[in-house]
């Protein structure tokens, strides 16, 4: 112990190149985590600007700002950016920063792979958005205009934006798979002595299942888009009936990835929730084992339900019934999680700092996503909901209220640990209330639009949809603008502010809170022993 201390004293922990080279060459999990989170925040605003342009177009009936071709490009790239470049990197950023701190490891197991995994992201993001710029110079006809789902044969027909998107998805997929391998290897091999799998923090469990899902499903997506690429350029007919192919085959392959993807986005957040709830309820997380088994059950079920994304494509009655019931079955493990979250709060001593507000907001709004998901599983009712704004509202409750508000919970919860400073609680609360109110103002009317019969992905609509669309657009702009508060709060917190101690939150427990805030550049060089 004493030798190790002297050793550390002789080599000051922070020796790395300065300036840009530090970030290009870093293999430090904290630096890489910071880069992931920064990239994610930037792309969150890029994707947000795209959809604000869409909402502005939809403010009134008639075409005001853009032509349908451009509208179709914006909706698809918005989704791809938000999913692959905002939400997924945010979760990976959390994992990089927090996993080693939480499991008592000195770093991620594969640091160079980690660096490469991050630096693949910016080129992929450029590939995805470059066609917009190229089109301004008269090259090509813009970005992918098929929606984020790439459905063949529309994507076979599309311009070079589709090729750009295919290659971008390949690169993003490689990055995610490398990140996942790193996380699995780290969790399996680098836990502090005495930390058995059933003592692993729930956040690590959530990410472990995520990582396995990524490795299981991303190759299928990669295969599907590669088949698309060869259909487009090399004369194959995977998705062309005239050559013996089948357009619906693409949907099966796509959603075999696409449905687990929803849980890939949500599992890290579900892992995070018990930590936050337990901290601010000053009470241990309820039902640790039940939550772990639920994560595993959801992971397994998620790869067995994909066809509920295209019930209207037509399939045999037994298949319809199977996919309906298997989808409904997911509600059971999910209900376990809700039960555990609320039971964690029950009889605690709660305070409502910003992370707790976001956690509670997450539970309520994600509850709406879960319940509407349950009725969407019903094949007969789905015939009305499918392809309508009802579905758009449903998955934004899942992915904005569930995904993005979950990430915000984590950011507010860990930001003081990362920076050593307290963010502005006042701004944080203002950000929360503005976000929650404007989010509902944006998406609640979309449920009614869908029920009334408005299809999704249309640039112009019939007059009976006008009022709800106007309200939704108003909400979207408030929602977008209030995120500037979030960025401003983070910026100020990084720059300075009230110093925090190791513990940060009164009720916080776990290894990460034993380190200083901010933690040293190299932490847990000597692993703690868990009893």
């Amino acid at each position, binding site marked *: 112990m004493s030798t190790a201390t002297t050793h550390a004293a002789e080599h000051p922990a922070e020796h790395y190149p300065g300036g840009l080279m530090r970030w290009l060459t870093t293999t430090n999990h904290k630096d890489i985590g910071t880069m992931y989170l920064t990239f994610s925040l930037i792309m969150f605003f890029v994707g947000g600007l795209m959809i604000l342009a869409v909402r502005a177009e939809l403010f009134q009936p008639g075409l005001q700002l853009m032509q349908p071709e451009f509208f179709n490009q914006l909706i698809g790239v918005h989704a791809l950016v938000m999913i692959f470049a905002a939400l997924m990197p945010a979760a990976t950023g959390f994992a990089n920063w927090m996993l080693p701190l939480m499991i008592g490891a000195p770093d991620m197991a594969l640091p160079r792979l980690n660096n490469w995994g991050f630096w693949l992201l910016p080129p992929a993001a450029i590939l995805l958005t470059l066609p917009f710029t190229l089109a301004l110079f008269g090259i090509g006809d813009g970005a992918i205009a098929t929606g984020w789902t790439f459905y063949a044969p*529309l994507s076979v*027909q599309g311009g070079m934006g589709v090729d750009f998107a295919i290659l971008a998805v390949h690169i993003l997929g490689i990055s995610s798979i490398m990140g996942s391998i790193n996380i699995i290897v780290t969790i399996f091999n680098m836990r502090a002595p005495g930390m058995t799998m059933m003592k692993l923090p729930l956040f690590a469990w959530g990410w472990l299942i995520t990582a396995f899902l990524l490795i299981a499903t991303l190759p299928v997506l990669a295969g599907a888009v590669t088949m698309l690429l060869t259909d487009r350029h090399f004369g194959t007919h995977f998705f062309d009936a005239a050559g013996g192919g089948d357009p619906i085959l693409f949907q099966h392959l796509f959603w075999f990835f696409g449905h687990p993807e929803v849980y890939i986005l949500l599992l890290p957040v579900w892992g995070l929730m018990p930590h936050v709830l337990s901290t601010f309820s000053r009470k241990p997380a309820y*039902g640790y084992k039940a939550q772990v088994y639920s994560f595993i059950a959801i992971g397994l079920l998620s790869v067995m339900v994909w066809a509920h994304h295209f019930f209207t494509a037509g399939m045999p009655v037994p298949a319809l019934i199977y996919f309906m019931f298997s989808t409904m079955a997911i509600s059971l493990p999910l209900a*376990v999680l809700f039960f555990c979250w609320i039971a964690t709060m029950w009889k605690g001593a709660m305070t409502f700092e910003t992370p707790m507000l976001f956690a509670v907001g997450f539970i309520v709004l994600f509850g709406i996503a879960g319940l509407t998901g349950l009725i969407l599983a019903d094949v007969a009712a789905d015939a009305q909901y499918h392809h309508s704004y009802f579905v758009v509202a449903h998955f934004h409750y899942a992915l904005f209220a569930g995904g993005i508000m979950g990430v915000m919970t984590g950011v507010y919860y860990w930001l003081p640990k990362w920076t050593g400073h307290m963010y502005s609680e006042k701004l944080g609360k203002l950000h929360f209330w503005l976000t929650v109110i404007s989010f509902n103002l944006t998406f609640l009317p979309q449920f009614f639009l869908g029920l*009334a019969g408005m299809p999704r992905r249309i640039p112009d609509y019939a007059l009976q949809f006008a009022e709800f669309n106007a309200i939704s657009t108003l909400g979207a702009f408030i929602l977008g603008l209030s995120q500037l508060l979030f960025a401003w709060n983070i910026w100020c917190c990084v720059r300075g502010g009230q110093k925090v101690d190791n513990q940060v939150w009164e*009720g916080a427990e776990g290894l990460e809170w034993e380190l200083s805030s901010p933690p040293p550049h190299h932490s847990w060089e000597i692993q703690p022993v868990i009893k």
Partner: protein
Amino acid sequence: MASCTLETQTARNADVNLVAWLLRSLFPPSALLLPGAASAAYSFNFPEPVTPIARETLHIHNEFMLIITVLFVVVFAIMIYSMIKHRKSSGHAPATFAGPTGALQWFWALVPFAILLFIDFVLMGIPAVKAIINMEDTQTKADMVLKVTGMQWKWQYEYPEAGVKFISTLATPRDQISNAEAKGEHYLLEVDKPVVLPVGKKVRVLLTSTDVIHTWWVPQFGVKRDAIPGFLRETWVLIEKPGIYRGQCAELCGKDHGFMPVVVHAVPEPEYLAWVETQKAEAKAVAGGAERTWSKDELLVEGKAVYEKVCAACHQPDGKGLPPAFPALAGSKVVNGPLLDMNGKVIKDSHVDRVMHGKAGTAMQAFSASLSDVELAAVITYERNSFGNQMGDMIQPAQIKSLR
């Protein structure tokens, strides 16, 4: 049962009116440049169902909405109670339990799941399975067949038994879409030629597509089914009430996805039969047109009409197209190339070949399937002699007929 439905209907209308009034005072129609009548039309639930499936779907939907609302309220009432009672500021000391302890707690932990299991697989599951079986039963006692073909960006309808076939496209003028003109009552939900179906008959609907996937959807029928190129899918409708029912394509199918509405006129059977007769007579007249020789001026007039209905969405009314996806016809090498070879046969990749057989992998479809001899001859002649193209030649409907 009927009176009960009526009551809910009235209660719902009362709600709707209140919110509608609120909305209208917040967003006065004048501010949105809309006719006042249209803003009263929106609703908070499905539109009035007119088929057995739609009625069943609405019923299931209302039931499920009730179930999930109760779940939502109960669960979050418990949470909010806890948030009020178990606060640090109210001096509540935290408990230390981390799981159920004792038989009673286990019981309360398991009860919600038993309830959910029952809701999923019995309360919701059984009516859902019944609805699926009913919805997919397209063939039992079907009275007639309607074949629907999706095309970018229009629908073709065919009545195989009656031998009637036509294309139905958006009738809303482009000026309304670009806001140069006030929008009509059925903005974007009106077509030049609606489908006509008899009420009280079970219609088996077969769906396919010529290019990409489209989805045929009429909300009041409770039916939505994909039209997939190279495959047949099916569904059925039995309309119970005469009327005009409007819907839209529901699957993103390219640039004019938002502009391919479905309009169905449901009429009593005698009226339907009379309509079929007029359609047959019209078709005969058109077929007869292919036999005679047309003058160039006649072809140009007819060609302009066909062009504006079928071609202008992509190639634009001025023939300049939207390159690179939709090439210009003005000055195009293909259009300004030779018409036919010396034996009067189609030259590969020539103008006639493109129009009749399309171009694989693009939005340019094979129009020989959907346009008549006269329409094909007219539109080809028109394109060769418009937008600054001065080929001066023409092709006769009879020639097209022999080239098929």
